[in-house]
């Protein structure tokens, strides 16, 4: 592997020799595997291998980038890139990349993930677990996904490191009948502790509760969010903390540093730790990643920064580069003190929403949005599930949603699903009061 590092370093040296101010080269050898299933059968097995080197080059505050494949035509590509920098324009706000040598944590990738070549046993395990709740007439679909990435980063400004990242994910949506469904996910960085049956059980349990759904009613209700649903909300809320999104007004956090944005029971961090499917030891500038407290007891503590945005905001990088756009890697909402049962007892008239999709905003500065609950949407009266609903929409404001949080569970789940619960998160059950639900008229 030192050969790959040496080739990556050659790219950096070539850029510097041409006259570049800064060069970062990141070589990734990646193996991804996926099995997609529906109607309880595997539709397709997919394998894709990627061998790429991403190159960032700056010259007189001009930022250009390219990708080199298989270390081919390095000299020509770098010359073209340098020419592009000369044709480009200065960005006076560009504040450079990280400088100096860093010590990194030891990568904890699990090589066993690479050897999962026949995924059907995991898929069958999940389907069988769902069947325990909804019987043999189950219809189910989903994916089993594995990734194994080897990353080699060399920066002309000092950082140099190697990372190995692994993940295995199973997502299953189980149907007891056409409109009675539940969704579960199992996400892990390692094969050890990966239990696909947990996802199947969750999907089956929810599908069973979703029996005979009736069209829901418009109103303001207390809502208990399943971790998969709330992971999706975190996935929209957290990235708004990127300094880039604050600068481009695609955020509800403009001018809110140090201000209360949620009640005291809400603490949200970013932490691409060992367990996360988005685990890593350094960011795209080679800055070591760490736990970053984003919202502390309801107060906004920081934006997510790379070196350049940190300079604009007169602070330090938080290890969230993206060279152009800093972003959170893997969000964590701190556990609360409630059990799920206690949370249900708190609800006189409300809903337990288990999953959602198609979240869209009217205006990112105000946070007005709607999202469409899918799978089990369960009506609660006096702490008990009374019936199943369908055809509803959560139509509210994301600032209001987080400000209305009245309960956070002790239990948390690591969730990541398709484009909806993205980036991954460690999400609890959450109780929010007085949230607007609408339906078609």
């Amino acid at each position, binding site marked *: 592997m030192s050969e790959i590092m040496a080739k990556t370093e050659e790219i950096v040296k070539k850029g510097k020799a041409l006259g570049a101010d800064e060069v970062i080269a990141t070589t990734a050898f990646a193996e991804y595997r996926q*099995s997609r299933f529906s109607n309880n059968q595997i539709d397709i097995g997919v394998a894709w291998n990627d061998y790429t080197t991403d190159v960032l080059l700056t010259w007189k505050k001009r930022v250009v980038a390219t990708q080199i494949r298989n270390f081919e035509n390095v000299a020509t590509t770098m010359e073209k890139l340098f020419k592009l920098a000369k044709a480009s324009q200065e960005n006076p706000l560009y504040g450079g990349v990280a400088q100096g040598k860093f010590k990194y944590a030891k990568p904890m990738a699990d090589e066993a993930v690479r050897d999962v070549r026949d995924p059907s046993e995991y898929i069958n395990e999940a389907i069988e677990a769902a069947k325990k709740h909804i019987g043999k007439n189950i219809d189910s679909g989903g994916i089993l996904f594995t990734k194994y990435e080897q990353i080699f980063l060399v920066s002309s400004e000092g950082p140099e490191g190697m990372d190995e990242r692994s993940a295995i994910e199973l997502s299953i949506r189980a149907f007891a009948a056409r409109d009675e469904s539940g969704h579960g996910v199992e996400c892990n960085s390692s094969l050890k502790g990966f239990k696909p049956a947990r996802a199947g059980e969750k999907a089956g349990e929810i599908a069973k509760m979703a029996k005979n759904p009736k069209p829901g009613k418009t109103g303001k209700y207390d809502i208990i969010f399943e971790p998969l649903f709330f992971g999706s909300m975190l996935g929209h809320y957290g990235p708004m903390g990127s300094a880039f999104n604050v600068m481009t007004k695609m955020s509800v956090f403009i001018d809110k540093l140090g201000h209360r944005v949620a009640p005291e029971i809400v603490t949200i961090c970013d932490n691409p730790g060992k367990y996360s499917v988005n685990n890593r030891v350094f960011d795209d500038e080679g800055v070591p990643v760490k736990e970053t407290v984003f919202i502390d007891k309801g107060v906004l503590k920081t934006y997510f920064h790379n070196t350049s945005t940190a300079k604009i905001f007169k602070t330090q990088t938080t290890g969230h580069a993206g060279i152009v756009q800093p972003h959170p890697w893997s969000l964590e909402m701190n556990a609360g003190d409630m059990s799920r049962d206690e949370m249900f007892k708190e609800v006189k008239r409300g809903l337990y929403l288990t999953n959602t999709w198609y979240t869209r905003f009217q205006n990112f500065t105000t946070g007005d949005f709607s999202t469409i609950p899918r799978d089990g949407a369960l009506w609660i009266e006096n702490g008990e599930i009374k019936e199943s609903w369908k055809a509803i929409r959560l139509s509210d404001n994301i600032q209001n949603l987080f400000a209305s949080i009245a309960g956070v569970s002790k239990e948390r789940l690591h969730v990541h699903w398709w484009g909806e619960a993205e980036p991954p998160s460690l999400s609890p059950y959450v109780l929010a009061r007085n949230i607007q639900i609408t339906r078609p008229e």
Partner: protein
Amino acid sequence: MEKDIVDYCLEYAKSKKTEYAEAKAVDTDVENIMLKNGLLDAFAVTTDSGFNVRILAEGGLGFASSNKWTKQEAKHVVDMAYKMAKNANRKDKIKFAEEKAVKTKWDVEQKKKVENVSSEDKIKRLLEVDKAVMSQKANVVSRMFIYTTLLTKEYFVNSEGSVISCFVPKLEVMPIGVTVVEGGKTEQLPYKWYGYTGGWEAFEAWKLDEDIAREVQVLQRLLKEGKAIKPSKMDLVCGPEVTGIACHESCGHPMEADRILGREMSQAGRSFIYPDGPYWIGSQIGSDLVTIIDDPTIANSYGYYLYDDEGIKARPRYLYKNGVINEFLQNRETAAKLGTRSNGASRSVNYDREAIVRMANTYLQPGDMSEKEIFEDIKHGVFMNSFTEWNIDDVRFNQRYIGREAYLIENGELKAPVPRPIIETTTKTFWTAVDAVSKKVEFVSASCGKGDPGQGIPVDTGGPLIRLKGVHVR
């Protein structure tokens, strides 16, 4: 692109016990320019190049790809695809609908080659757009523009004898987060998409400086003069952008045969149309004025293609015809299951993604009314010319659109802007309420999301003005 590697993949795949095999190479020159608040934030130029193999063996499908152009890697890719196909171990064996082999080459002409426009000129033109936006008498506090060129060469071969190559250039511009503040209130154009298949001539035709400046004026006027309406049943006129998104979301998507058969059940969802369900081919879904077509062959459209990614010749598909569910979007796999033929709807976004059933350019067929006639009979209503937030449930029945540019209509005349009017309705209610359709069709580009991992694919959406009689607007 090394065609001999692709040919080798096919020959090697054919040496195995397969029912079908195909191999494809994709080379794309990508150019990205990002202008943020008037400054050039980043400029990226990349050549993305790789190949894939898809194999049907023992009734299972396997797909593998790589960007390492060696014979050894090609062999490995074929072996992986073959193994994955066999691992599927399906009870219900996958079959492909019969098709004849095609040998052809199709290239999209650029009237003005984008390769001949210098990087400096492209930056200059984007800065001119930015300047036009900032010269409006409005407090524009943020704006971002992303320009992209994609020059794509493809080479496709399959075990039935098809050999197809093509060259497809595309241009895209996306304004993002154009934000106007007035009196402490904010209005925003979250996203807009300009897309074209062809050359630099698109940039001239779009007149971005005028169009995005107009968007700023609309937001400014809304902030100054916007007047909320009282929720009630009224007539709603939808502009081409709103008609187009409704065609895409509540006709195009539910008519994708892979959804109908459940293959997307865990991700993009299913459809309100399904075997033995309440809706099928022949069911009434809208008024007889509603004919919605998906047509990949519209010259220079963003979703343009002549052969799909299974080598099937493209043609217009009449999805809803005179208000009746008429024809699904099919690939070879879904067509075999439903006892029909593919209609060329199989698309993938790159070499590393499997081709799945997709739309191309989905629009409502024009009617015979003038725009004046559409409005003149309305005593009280709303004109929703464009939309901001929108979404639809995963069976494509419960949807809502919120107006970005919208006006009150009184006695046939447009009055004050209406801030974010909402229609939240069902597919059947929406299309059944259509009682008037204008003559002129306009298109708006978009990136359609589907697949896992996601494949945002270029599409156009569009239509004429349509009038919905007596729908609830709030």
